[in-house]
Structure formats: structure tokens, C-alpha cells
């Protein structure tokens, strides 16, 4: 009787171990790693090249979304307007929201603007405190120069008011 039990335990262990036996490697791990590293570098060069071509530094404007904490706001969507014209919009998935809450910053939009004055508006939609529907806007008067402009759409918690706070912040030119 005991032999039967031992047999089946042995057979289970055998099947579990056997699956991990890899086939003979035809492409070594080192070769694969080198290839992946080369491709990542190539992708980097192509991305830089594309940015240099499509968004030259003197006209470049980049928008990022960040979330500091996010207890009082669950972000659903963002719409970005430049001089009252819709320039970008985004609907957020659970994973994207989570990545923002954990400290990630989303590159929302990159474009070109000539030197001059612009009104940047962002509209944030989501769920506010106690799960209420919440829609707020924030505005920034941008004076675009020949330097690239970086604008952060910042969502943070206002502890004193127990409300979310939305602001557009222009970063110093990189």
C-alpha cells in the first residue's frame, strides 16, 4: 500500500522536474544579451534622431503628467488645449494610473510651437473625494522662446482641503 503512495509521489516529482529540462541552447545567452543591447542602443539612436527631426529644440514643447499621492483623485482622462484647440487627450487604464501613483511620469504630448505667447489649458476628469465625479481645469500662460519648453500637468493632494489640486508648471529649459 505504501509502495503505491510512494510511486505516485515519485511520479509527480518526476513530472515537475522533467519540465524544467531545457532543450539544447542554439543561441547562447551571451549572444542574445549582446544582440538585445545593440538593439536597445539602435532604438535609442533612432528615437533621438526622430526627435531631432520632428521636434527641433527651438520649437519643441513637451507635456508630462505627474501624480503626487492621489488619495483624493482617481484619474480617468485628460484633455490638453493650446489656445483653445485640442492638442492631446488620454484615457487612463488601471495600470497607467497605478504607474502614476507609484511615482512614474507620463509623457503626454510633444509638439512644436513658434516663439510667442500661448494659453495652455488642461482638463482633468475622474473621481474625486468619496467617489464623486470630478472635473477640473488648470491654465498656464506660456511665453515660448527659442528654448524647448517643458510643462508638467501636476495632480497633487491638498491635505488641508481634502481635495485634489491641479496645476500646470513650466520647468526650466533642459
Amino acid at each position, binding site marked *: 500500500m505504501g509502495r503505491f*503512495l510512494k510511486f505516485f509521489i515519485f511520479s509527480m516529482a518526476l513530472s515537475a522536474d522533467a519540465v524544467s529540462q531545457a532543450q539544447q541552447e542554439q543561441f547562447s545567452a551571451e549572444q542574445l544579451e549582446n*544582440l538585445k543591447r545593440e538593439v536597445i542602443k539602435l532604438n535609442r539612436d533612432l528615437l533621438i534622431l526622430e526627435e531631432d527631426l520632428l521636434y527641433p529644440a527651438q520649437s519643441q514643447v513637451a507635456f508630462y503628467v505627474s501624480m503626487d499621492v492621489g488619495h483624493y483623485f482617481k484619474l480617468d482622462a485628460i484633455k490638453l488645449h493650446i489656445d483653445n484647440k485640442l492638442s492631446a487627450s488620454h484615457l487612463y487604464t488601471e495600470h497607467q494610473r497605478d504607474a502614476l501613483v507609484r511615482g512614474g511620469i*507620463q509623457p503626454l504630448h510633444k509638439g512644436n510651437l513658434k516663439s510667442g505667447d500661448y494659453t495652455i489649458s488642461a482638463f482633468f476628469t475622474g473621481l474625486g473625494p468619496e467617489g464623486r465625479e470630478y472635473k477640473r481645469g488648470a491654465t498656464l500662460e506660456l511665453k515660448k522662446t527659442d528654448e524647448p519648453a517643458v510643462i508638467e500637468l501636476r495632480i497633487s493632494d491638498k491635505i488641508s482641503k481634502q481635495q485634489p489640486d491641479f496645476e500646470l508648471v513650466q520647468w526650466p529649459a533642459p
Partner: protein
Amino acid sequence: MQYRPLSRALSLTLTLLSVSLPAFGNEVEIAQHENPAEEEEKAGTQKYRQAQDMAYGATLYAYFQGNNFDALSTLLIAKQRDSIKVHGDSAALIEGGISLSFGLHQRAAELFEQLLQADNKNIDTKYRQAAWLKLAELNYLQGDFPKAAVHLEKSGAVQTSSLPLNLALHSQDLSNARQLLENAELSLAQRLLGHINLGAALARSGQLDEAAEAYRTAGALAAEQDEPSEEIQVLADKAHIGAGYALALTEQFTQAQLAFSRVRLQTPWATKALLGLAWSSINNAEYQKGVDALHFLLSKHEHSPAAREARVALPYAYEKQQERNAALTAYSNAASYYQTTLQELQQLQQNLASEPLADARQFGEAQRYGWLQMAQASPLLRDNQHFLLPILQSDKFQLRLSELRDLQQINSVLQGWSDKLPQLHALIDERHQRRSNIIEKYQNAQFDQQLQIGRQQYRRLNDALAQIETERDVLALVKASSRSDSDNISNAAEMLELLRGAEQRYQLLQKHGKGSDYQGETLQRARGILLWQASEEYHHRLWQQRKTLGQLEENLRTGEKQLRKTSIEASRAPQLTELTERLQNTAAQLDDKRAAIAHAATLVEASLRQDIIAELDREQIQINGYLAHTRLAIARLQDASLQESILQPVTDNPQGVNQEETQPLENAIAEEQYSEEAAEVNKPSESTVISSEGDESE
């Protein structure tokens, strides 16, 4: 028994470490705007803070969504452009972590080693220690255990890491492992896992009593928690299963039953516990308990690997209960199930030969959160997971599948670039053309001369107006306005010219004594009228001249702007040439890399497919074993019935009439099934049937 891929655990730790890094800098900044108590409260309630560098934050954003390739690319661009200022140290650590997740072990090691170089003194001690520890874990992952031990020592984390325990277990130093487990300052989950791994190692070395004790300790640790987390409950289940099998193997069946019964039923691993419980009960002569467990297993998890064995165990239990007919029926059902399953497995093997294991087109846009999520697996794998579960649960297989999907993702990115490159070429050509047109139009001597004349005119008019305004010289204004188109102004200038001529002639006449007073008075009167008229028109003329000056200034500005633009365009010629060269260089590499990646992906996929097919072969061998056993049992039972019916005189037993009415019918059905099966597979000879009689089912 490692339940989580080490590389994933390492990178997760790194991520958690790195996301906590931005907190300090941000707190300082916010403290300027809010009161300290408020800030304190805020800091106390939150877990994460935003990053201080956009590029660093963008890297984390991609990484937290499981997109290692994009995360690494973003980080490399930031490094190339030197745009990470605040998180420099943590960027190196996070790059190491992401590289590890992306299978770039060598690169990760290089990064950690760079952080730890002797001349790199600016780096914080906690980062150094973290890097030593990660390096040690990386060495462990690569199988370099002595090096791992050395690096672990340098990290100063011997007490707080589970790595020393893993190293001791790997070197079979089980007493040291036990000692380390007692003294280490580990989290509850790590201690539980440590005891489970120790139990597994003890069981492997044949020390089953000690193994059972280690598993029991793990179970007891979990039981101490009032509200255990899901992770703890999972570990507790694993500990109970381990303890159950260790006890069953030492024939402590009652204890084993108790251990198995503690495993939660609504879990995927409950099948192993139910099977263990059933065998322990049967071996403990509690057959009904065993039958109940097997029935539950078959009703709730009928296609699980454990259920296959349960189909043999159930009739065996019936036999023990002296229910021969029930046993025969159950064996017959099992035999037909095994045959159907074998056919399905063969069909699956055929289908797998051509089905893509990870379709990049299907999953390209999907975010990846662990490869075990069947929703993201290939439909064929997903629909047949009950056959493939053992291989899908293997860390090694999952890592290689992850490798395949990384390669396919890279391939699709490179494909995207191949499609995009002609557009970029066209863009550069268009810019070249535009630049040439502008230069041709504006960068010539005629345009420069016009601009020069314009500048002179502006200067002249500006100086004249400044002097006129200072001296309020209305007649000078009339003269300055003479170039204007206005008729009034032209007439006044003409009159002034005439008056000045007349005055000159009058003075000449006077010099010769011929000029009359009347002529002098007339000239004075004319000058007076002219002055009066000019004074009346002064402001209007001045405004006209200012307007002309403004227009001149605007024209000059436009001309100069155009000139600047032209020079910028002219200076861009080398930039465009450089961009063209860069584009050509990268395009040349692109095709080679795509071909290499596609080749690597094909090899990895073929290897994975071979593994799956081999696993299905093993399953078929196992099922064939069960099938053979089932057929032998059917033959044995039928033989026993036949022997009994021959030996039992009909007249002696009045109830035998009923038996003859029922049993031959059932036996006929069983015989019919048996004859079909026997025709296909190894036909058991009579001697086999006879020799198996009375023997146990082994």
C-alpha cells in the same frame, strides 16, 4: 520549491527602493509652501512620491507597466542627453534592475560593479550596500555561489536577506540553513518560504521527519497571524501540502490527513491536497473518507493532473470497500477518459507544431504583468492549460517565454522603424529643398543692398525728426516731409523752396544797392504766412513722419529677421547633412538587427515548442501507465467474478439467481469495453491476468 522567479523579485526590490528615493527631495520643496504639521501628516499617510526628473519619471512609468524595453530606451536617451540631474545614483540602480528584468544579466552586473568602484566615493552607503546585495543575488542567479557569498558579505545584509539561506540550502548544508533561518531578521513571508524550502531540501535528502517538522513550523507561523495576507495564506497552503506528503511517506497517515485538510479548497493547488488526503485516508483504512475526497476532486477539478490519478485511486478505494461492481464501472470510466485524453493530447501536439506561442501582433499593445496570466497567453495554450499547467508553472519555461515575447516586441519595434525611415528621409529632403529656396531668395547681394539703403533712410529720418522736435523747426519739417506723397506737403515744400530762392536773390540785390523795402516786406510777409501755415500743419506732419519712420523700422526688422532666418537655414545645411548621415547609418544597421532578432526568436520559439511537445509526450506516457493499470484491474476484477461464479454452486445459494441476473450484464459491458481497448494496446495475456490476481495495484 521556489515560487517566484528570482529576477522578478530582484527587480521588484530595486523598484521599490528607487521609488522611495525621490521622496526626500520633494518633501523639502513642498515644505516651503505648507506648514510642517501638514507635511508630516502627508508624509505619514503616503507610500509613493513623484520623481524629480521628467526622464527618470518617464522611465518608471514605462517600467511600472511592465514595458522594460521602452523603459530602458527612455533611460538611455536621458543618459545620452544628460537630462537626469536629481536621481543620478538611483538611475544607475534602476537601470540595473530593469536590465535584470529584461534578461540583460551581464549589463546589470556591469552597472552594479560601476556603482561599487573604489573611486566612486560620492555614492550613498545605502546605495552601495543595495548594489552589493543585488550583485550577490545576480551571482546566485547565474550559479556563481562562491562569488555570491563574497558579495553578500560586503553588502552587510547577511541578517536581513534570505540569500544566505538559499546558498546554504544549495550547498546541502542543512544544519547551517536551519541555524541561519533561526537567527535571520526576515519578514514573515520570507521566514515561511525559508522553512518551506528547508522542508523541501530535507525531504529530498530523505530526512522526512525533519522535513515534516520544518513544514509544520511554517504552518504554525502562518497560523499565528490574526488576519493573514493572501501571500501568507498561499505559503501556509504550500506548507500544509508539504507536511502532508512528508507525513504520508513516513506512514503517519492520520497526521497527514490533518495536514492536507488544512489546505483551502478554493485554490488551484487544492487538487494536490485532495489527492494526498484521499491516499492517506485509503492507506489509513478510512476508505469512505478517501472516496469522498476523490469525488470532490473529480467534480471540481475533473481535468486537473491530480484528477487523472484520482480516477485510478477511486476504483481502488471501492475495491477496498468490497464494492466490486462500483470499482469495475469506475475503472471502465477511467479507461475511456484516458483514451479520450490521449487523443486530445495527440491533437494538441499536432496543433502546437504550427501555432505561435506568443503572437506579437496580438499582444503588442498589451501591457505585461507576469507571464502566468492566461488571459494574455496564446489561445491554444490558454484552452489547454489543464494539460500544460506543469510546464507553464515552471519558472524556467516562463522566463524563456518572456524572452520570446521580448524578442517579438523588439522585432515589432524594429519593423515600425523600417516603416518610418522612408518618411524621415522624405522629411529631410523636404527641409533641404525649403532651405535651398529660402537661401536662393534672400541670400544675395541685391537683398543686402536694399537692406543697407533702408537702414540709411531710417537713420537719416530719425535724426532729422529728433532735431526738428528739439528745435521745433517747422520749416525743416516741411523740407523733411518733401518726399512724402501728400500734395499739401509737396506744395508747402515747393513754396518754401521758392521763398528761399527769392530771399537769396533779394539779398544779392541789396548787396548791390538795388533791393527795395517793398520787396523785403513782401518776402517777410510770405515767410510769415509760410511759417504760420507750417505751424498749423506741424503736428499732422510730425505724426505722418513718425508713421513713416515706424513703417521703415518695421520693414527693416522684417528684412533683418529674414536675413537671420536665411543665415540659420544656411547654417543648418551641415545639421541636415549630419541627420542624413545618421539616418543612413541606422538604416544600414536596422535590417541586420531585424534579421538577427527574428532568427533568435525563431530559435527560442522552436526550443519552447519542443519542450511543450516533450512535456505532452511525458503526459501521454503517464496516462498510458494509468490506462495499462486500469485495464489490468478490469481484467483482474472480471477474472475474479468469473472464478467466483464457477466455484459457487447455483443450488447452494438461492440469492445467486439475482447475482447471475445482474453481474453478467455488467461484466458483459466491461468485457466489451475491455476487448476494444485490448485490441488497440498491449493485449494482456491470460498468464498476466492470472498473475495479477490478488496482487496489489502497484
